[in-house]
């Protein structure tokens, strides 16, 4: 890693000095980090895989329409369950038991009879939707609370820090599990809105247990930054507090925020699928975790059914995690893997 670092430094130096005729352009730390990231092969491969998965998730309705496949068997256009599933509940069309057909490229689910490809792409959509929303909201909450705590010192800092510690002491997995049914039962009584209520509940639970790490980090950073000369100077010449927070402090916090986002995303993906796997997350919306738990009993006879969601979750979390590691290395050259 040290060798690589000097190589990187060397590259940067070459870029700066190789073209003497050109105007010397300043690079922001973010630009330098992205330049490093582009040179990282693992990051590039993971980035491509992720873009592909995101495109698939965004285009899920187009894909299902193109193939005429349905994840929801109650859809009026969907084939009758008895057409795709035989008497014992085993699929009667599609791989791996029957020849490949374009109408069911990855086969159908036993018993319920929905199309595996349709369920998979919609499950991916849910995973990414939940993970991205949870990341954005919890990042926002973490940054705002961290800024407030770090900048105010006094009692507000003590209150926020105490609440942060309190949440960190809460057993998050059990807390998440226990909160889900309560929030859902509180806010919905009719089944039509259940799916949406579950989705919102899931995102809020992930946010409730996901903001503390960043809030702590930002607070620490702000505590050290606010003693620096440029902040003191801004205070002396009477820059309004809001401007100091957002124009002076926030740009200096880009690196930790980006790193925390990139490391937080895979965690949220795993958490969403995990909760659904336990049967306590989403029931009305397709979810990769739910597909895994549905497919578990068929591991021996219908391995494809199990490996589809397992493979999708693994691919998604693996590429997000590896990309996150690369982002961290790119933004913080001191880290050693």
């Amino acid at each position, binding site marked *: 890693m040290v060798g690589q670092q000097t190589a990187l430094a060397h590259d940067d130096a070459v870029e700066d000095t190789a073209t003497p005729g050109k105007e010397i352009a300043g690079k922001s730390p973010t630009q330098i980090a992205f330049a490093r990231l582009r040179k990282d092969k693992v990051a590039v491969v993971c980035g491509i895989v992720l873009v592909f998965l995101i495109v698939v998730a965004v285009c899920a309705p187009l894909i299902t329409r193109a193939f005429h496949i349905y994840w929801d068997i109650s859809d009026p256009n969907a084939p009758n369950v008895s057409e795709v599933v035989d008497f014992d509940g085993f699929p009667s069309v599609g791989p791996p038991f029957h020849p490949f057909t374009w109408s069911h490229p990855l086969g159908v689910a036993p018993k319920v009879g929905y199309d595996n490809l349709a369920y998979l792409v919609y499950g991916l959509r849910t995973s990414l939707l939940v993970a991205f929303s949870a990341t954005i909201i919890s990042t926002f909450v973490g940054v705002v609370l961290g800024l407030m705590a770090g900048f105010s010192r006094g009692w507000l800092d003590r209150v926020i820090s105490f609440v942060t*510690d*309190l949440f960190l*002491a*809460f*057993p998050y*997995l*059990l*807390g998440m*599990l*226990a*909160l889900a*049914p*309560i*929030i859902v*039962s*509180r806010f919905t009584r009719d089944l039509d809105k259940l799916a949406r209520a579950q989705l919102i509940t899931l995102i809020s639970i992930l946010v409730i247990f996901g903001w503390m790490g960043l809030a702590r980090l930002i607070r620490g950073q702000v505590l050290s930054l606010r003693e620096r000369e440029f902040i003191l100077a801004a205070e002396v010449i009477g820059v309004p507090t809001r401007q100091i927070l957002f124009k002076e402090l926030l740009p200096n916090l880009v690196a930790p925020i980006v790193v925390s986002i990139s490391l937080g995303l*895979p965690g949220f993906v*795993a958490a969403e*699928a*995990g909760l659904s*796997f*336990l*049967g*306590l997350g989403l029931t009305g919306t397709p979810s990769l975790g739910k597909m*895994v738990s549905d497919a*578990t009993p068929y*591991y*021996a006879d219908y391995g494809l059914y*199990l490996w589809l969601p*397992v493979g999708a*979750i*693994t691919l998604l*979390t*693996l590429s997000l*995690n*590896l990309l996150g*590691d690369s982002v961290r290395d790119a933004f913080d050259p001191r880290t*050693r*893997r």
Partner: protein
Amino acid sequence: MFGYIVRRLMSAALVVVLTSMIVFLLFFKGPSNPAQPLCDLNGKCTQEKLALLTEQLGLNDSVVHQYGIWAGGIFHSREIDFGATYTCDAPCLGISYRSRGQVTDELFEKFPATISIAVGGASIYLVLGVLLGTIAARRRGTWVDRGLVGFSVFVSAVPYYVIALLVWIYVSLQWKLIQDTSYHPLTSDPVHWFTGLSLPWLVIGLTSSTAYARYSRGQMIETMGEDYVRTAVAKGVSQRGVVVRHALRAAIVPIVTIFGLDFAFLLTGTVFTEQIFGIDGIGRWGINALRSPTDFPVVSATVLVAAVIIVIANLIVDLLYAVIDPRVRLA
């Protein structure tokens, strides 16, 4: 030192009290009507029955009063009345809606399984992780190091439950290598206890050891570069002596800190492990209680106990820090 301990104890107690309030509010004020699942459990739930149960459970009283009764039960026995009257001995965490047994008794009954899983898994990952990390640090830059780091990055990137599920399916069900995964009490059947838990231990141990390997590798690389390590090498201490006595002893301090918290989280419910391998511990008990109709006394007890364990672990880690690291001075 003494002042620090007192302050630390007081703040821990405050956190426990606040957590108990949060737990109480969550489970006895959060649901639209906590008596609903109880009412659903025995036959058809009529309006009168629901109203009667709500009254009997004291849900019409003020929140403060209800919390007082609920928290008071932890210190002295109380009677709980729904349908029939149940005596609940101290420490009382309520009567399970479903089994109609005392929650505390069931908690003590389920806890050994979770403790067994946690202790076994944690000892494997701590030893294995530190060992692999030390090896990787000693052979830094070689293929051993790169292989270990690459493998650990890969394993920690895949969600734990995916690995556990695949291991259970293939090792236990398909290839029948270790068939028996279940919990037998250590006191009655030590051999079965060991064989039944060996697979969960291995899965927890191997998956979590990767994080420890990476972490202890980083720590070891740092301490191996210290002057006193160079001094030890220069005065002719053996390779092993340098690594074990000089470098590892310093490197292990932050590892112990993380281990304490990890272990506490493991104790609070190895939810996925218990669910996948079918072991009757706290995690599975909590999950089953959550299925509708929700068994609120059980759920609140698991969350409360888990929170208390984490607070205690935090406390122990903070205090232990001063003992194992002489550089830390507490004031």
